[in-house]
């Protein structure tokens, strides 16, 4: 427990009585640490909001950040750190926004002569430490979700599904195929089948450096799913080494058509679709 109920009340009173002085000093310290990347007015606003929520929590008898009275305070802290994370500030810069309150408080309390002062300061300090840690956690979480979003976007960009002909779509896979990527590819391919009404799909793995059991499984699942929907998949771009690996691993592609090149696969599908291709002879001037 960081604070006793009385200390909680004293903190609230101290903050209330010295509101302006505290928020001023606090804002000053934070502004200095962020070196002008956020306006003073904005920081002052954040300081006041944080100040307000600490007072509220204190008046409600908060003994530590994690208890139920701390809900609003935690929300304000989370908001603050998420903002910092999105704006590209470092973890330290974010934490300083909270720890600066300690310095401001210390300056204030040094002037007081009460016997409880030292113990109170230690208690307030413990609470601010909890707040700092919490802020750090929130910061990390926001950064992680930003990274996850970017990874997803990258995934989207690198898995195009193209329509090659009436009733034929193709997915040229490039790079390593991990579980996450395989999922995305499968879903997008299947959706493309529905959107274009194509009964044929060519999965080209020319650009896939290595095929292991996992990758083969993913491809197989995609083919089975497409069949369930009423479409047929052809796998193309199987290089000699990959063919050897597949046989060595004992992977059975069963009755799934496989072709060495995308061109072969397209020719195959066109034939299945009843399309005839012909070379046009140039007209001669007689």
């Amino acid at each position, binding site marked *: 427990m960081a604070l006793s109920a009385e200390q909680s009340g004293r903190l609230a009173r101290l903050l209330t009585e010295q509101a302006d002085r505290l928020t001023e000093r606090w804002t000053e310290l934070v502004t200095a640490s962020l070196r002008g990347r956020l306006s003073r007015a904005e920081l002052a606003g954040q300081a006041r909001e944080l100040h307000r929520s600490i007072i509220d929590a204190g008046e409600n008898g908060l003994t530590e950040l994690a208890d139920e009275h701390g809900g609003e305070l935690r929300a304000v802290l989370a908001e603050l750190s998420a903002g910092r994370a999105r704006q590209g500030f470092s973890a330290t810069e974010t934490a300083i926004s909270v720890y600066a309150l300690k310095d401001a408080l210390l300056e204030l309390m040094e002037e007081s002569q009460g016997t409880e002062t030292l113990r109170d300061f230690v208690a307030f300090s413990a609470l601010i430490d909890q707040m700092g840690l919490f802020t750090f956690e929130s910061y990390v979480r926001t950064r992680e979700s930003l990274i996850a979003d970017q990874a997803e976007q990258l995934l989207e960009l690198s898995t195009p599904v193209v329509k090659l002909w009436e009733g034929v779509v193709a997915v040229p896979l490039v790079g390593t195929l991990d579980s996450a990527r395989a999922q995305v590819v499968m879903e997008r391919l299947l959706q493309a089948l529905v959107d274009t*009404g*194509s009964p044929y799909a060519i999965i080209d793995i020319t650009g896939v450096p290595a095929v292991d059991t996992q990758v083969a499984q993913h491809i197989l*699942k995609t083919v089975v799913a*497409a*069949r369930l*929907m*009423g*479409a047929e998949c052809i796998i193309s771009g199987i290089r000699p080494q990959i063919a050897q690996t597949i046989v060595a691993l004992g992977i059975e592609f069963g009755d799934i058509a496989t072709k060495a090149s995308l061109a072969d696969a397209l020719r195959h599908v066109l034939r299945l679709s009843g399309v005839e291709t012909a070379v046009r002879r140039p007209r001669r001037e007689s």
Partner: protein
Amino acid sequence: MERVPILKIGDILLVSIQVDMSDQTAMQLQEDLAERIVATGCHGVIIDITALDIVDSFVGRMLSTIASISKVLDAETVVVGMRPAVAITLVELGLSLSGIRTALNVERGMELIAAARADEWDEADGDEDAETTATA
């Protein structure tokens, strides 16, 4: 209990499942379809599951059963409109739905049925031709 409507379009029965069926409703559909196939003497059944957001083992079994029953009654069944998420789930669930023909939509389903009928007739014709050439 709701009943899934069955439409007759020419020589084909069309069922479009629009509701989240209870097991009883599914069983009723199975019965109704068998009855209608016999009553109309149709040769094709198209079951449109575009509106189904899940297909579990019960519905899967029902579809398989309908396919088997209709085959016995000389009709082709095609299931159309399966959603990608449903297909992916069925693969994970390990439900193979073997014995069921599928197509992307009603139009392709009809083509499939027509092609299946044509194949049958070709086979029958082929036997006749063989006889004719033999005697000539």
